[in-house]
C-alpha cells in the first residue's frame, strides 16, 4: 500500500476535524475535533516515518500523545469550570466580550 494513501488520509481527517471545529458549537465537541486533527497528524507522521524508514516520526507521535493528554486535562478543566455555572452552554453563548 502506497504511503501516499496514508498521508492523504491524514489530510482528509485533518480537514474534517478543522471543519468540525468551525461548524460545531459545543465546546466539548469542538475539543473532540481538535483531538481529531491531532490524530490526523499522527497518521501523517507514522506514514512519513515508514517512507523514510526513520523511527523519529514514531517518537514524535508518542510526544503528541502526551501533549494531547495534558491538553485534555487542562481543557476539560476549563470546560467544566465554565459549564458548572451554566450547563449546556454553547460556544456561541460565550460572547461576553466582543467588538
Amino acid at each position, binding site marked *: 500500500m502506497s504511503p501516499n494513501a496514508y498521508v492523504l488520509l491524514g489530510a482528509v481527517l485533518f480537514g474534517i476535524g478543522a471543519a468540525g471545529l468551525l461548524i460545531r458549537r459545543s465546546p466539548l465537541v469542538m475539543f473532540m475535533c*481538535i483531538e481529531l*486533527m491531532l490524530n490526523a*497528524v499522527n497518521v501523517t507522521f507514522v506514514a512519513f516515518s515508514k*517512507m523514510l524508514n*526513520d523511527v523519529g*516520526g514514531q517518537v514524535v507521535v508518542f*510526544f503528541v500523545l502526551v*501533549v494531547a493528554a495534558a491538553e485534555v486535562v487542562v481543557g476539560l478543566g476549563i470546560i467544566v469550570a465554565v459549564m458548572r*455555572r451554566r450547563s449546556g452552554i454553547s460556544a456561541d453563548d460565550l460572547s461576553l466580550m466582543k*467588538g
Partner: protein
Amino acid sequence: MFATLLQATGAGDKLVTPEVPWSHLAPQLILVVGATVGVIAAAALRGRLRRSVGAVGAAVVAGAAIVSIIPLWHRVSNPAQGPISAVNGAIGVDRFSLFVTALLCAAVILASFTAEAYLQREGLDGPEFSLLLLLAAAGGSVMAGANDLIVMFIGIEVLSLAVYVLAAMHARRISSQESGLKYFLLGGFASAFLLYGIALTYGATGTTSLLRVQSFLAERVLTDDGLLLGGLALMLVGFAFKVGAVPFHMWTPDVYQGAPSPVTGFMAAAVKTAAFAGMLRVFVVGFASYADLWRPVVGALAIASLVVGAVMSVVQTNVKRMLAYSSIAHAGFVLLGVDAASAEGTAASLFYLAAYTAMALGTFAVVTVVGGSGDGAHTLDAYRGLGRRRPGLALAMSLFLLAQAGTPVTIGFLAKLGVIRAAIDADQWALAIVAMLTAVISTFMYLRIVVAMYFAESESESDDRGELRIPWGVGVTIGVAVIATLVLGVVPGPLEHLSDDALPVLVAVDGR
C-alpha cells in the same frame, strides 16, 4: 537475518544517554526546579506562609535564573567556546536564547510583583499562580533555544497550557473563564496547524531537527518542494496565531480583556516575546534559504496587523481591549523586523520585544490598580479624573502610553525606529510607511486615555469608588518599568549592544 539487523542498528548495545551540560541549562533548570520545589512547598505549607511564598518565591527564582545567565552569556560570547547545542542538539544555548530567557524572567518578576496584592484582593491566593508563571517562562525559554521542531512544539505547549490556566483562573469572573476557554479552543486549533506543518516538514526533509533541516536544504535543491512549502505555510499559521498577527488575532482582544489583569500583562509581554523568539529561530535561521518565499507572507501579516490593530483600537471603549488591539499593532511592528530576515531585523525585533515587555507590564500594572476590586473597572470612564486622584499613577500611565505611541526620549521611539530601519534596510519601503502611518493613527487611541485621565472629570465622583490604593508590589513594577522606559530611551546603548549580539545560531553537536 534478525541478528544482522540487530547488529546493524546497534540495538543490542548499551544505551548511551546523551551528556547533559547542566551548567549550560542553568536558567531553565532553575526555573523548573524552583517551580517543582514550589509545588512541594505549596503542599506542605499552610496559612499565611503559603499565601505569601508565591509571589516573592517566583521573583527570587526568576532573579536567580537571570543571575545564572550572566556567566553563561560571557561564556557563550567567548570566541574560544561559543554557542553550543546541548543534549544531542535538542536545545541551543546562544546569546539569542539567553537574551529571550532573561526577558521572560524579567516578565515573571514584574508580573508576580503586580499580582501579589491582586491575588489577595480577588481572593485567589495560593502559590499556583506563581508556579505556573515560572513553568510558562521555562517553556518560553525552551522555545527560544529549541533546535528541534518537536522541542519547539512542546515548549509552545508548556507555555500555552500554563497561560490557558492562568487566563481562566479568576473563578468569580465568568469573563475570565470565558477568555480561558476561547484561548484554549483556538490555541488548540492553531497548535494542530503548527503540528501538521511540522509533520509535512518532517516528510519533506526527513528530520525535525532544525540543524539537519538546514544542512539538508543546503545540500540539495528540492525540485518539487510542495511538502516543505505546505509545512512552512502551516507552521507560519501556528506562530502567527501565538504572536497575535492579523488575521489570526481574533482571540487577542477577548482573551486580554477577560484574563486577570496581571496575567494579561504577562501574556502581552512574555507570550509574545517567546512566540516571536520561536518564529525568528525557525524562520529567520532554520528556513533562511526559503526567505524569499515566506517573507511576503510575513510582510502581509505585518501590514494587516498594523492597520487592523491601529484602526480597531481607536473605536474601543474598554481600556484593556484598546491595549489588546494596540498589542496587535505592536506585533505588526515586530513582524517588520522578522520580515527583514536579517541580523539587523532580528536585533531590532529583540529590542522591540524588550521595550514592549517594559511598557506592557507597566501599563497593565496600572490597569490592575485601576481595575479595582473585582477587576472590572476597565472602561474609559474608570480613568476619568485619574490625574487628579492619583497624579503619580496617571503620570506613569501617560508615560507608558506615550512610549507605546513612539514618543521620542522613550524606549518606544527607539524600538519603532529600529524595526522601521530594518525594514528600510531590507528595501521594504511600503511596510515602513504603513508602519509610520498607523503609528499616527494609534496615537489617537493612546491620547484618548491620557485625555480621559487629565482633562475629563469623572462624572460620578471618586467617593463611590473609594480611594485607589497602590500596593507595594505594583509600585515596584511601575517604578522599574518607568525607569526602563525612560533611561533606556535616552541611553539605549547597552540594550542595543545586547540585542545586536543576541543572534540565533544553529551549531552542530560534535561529530554530527
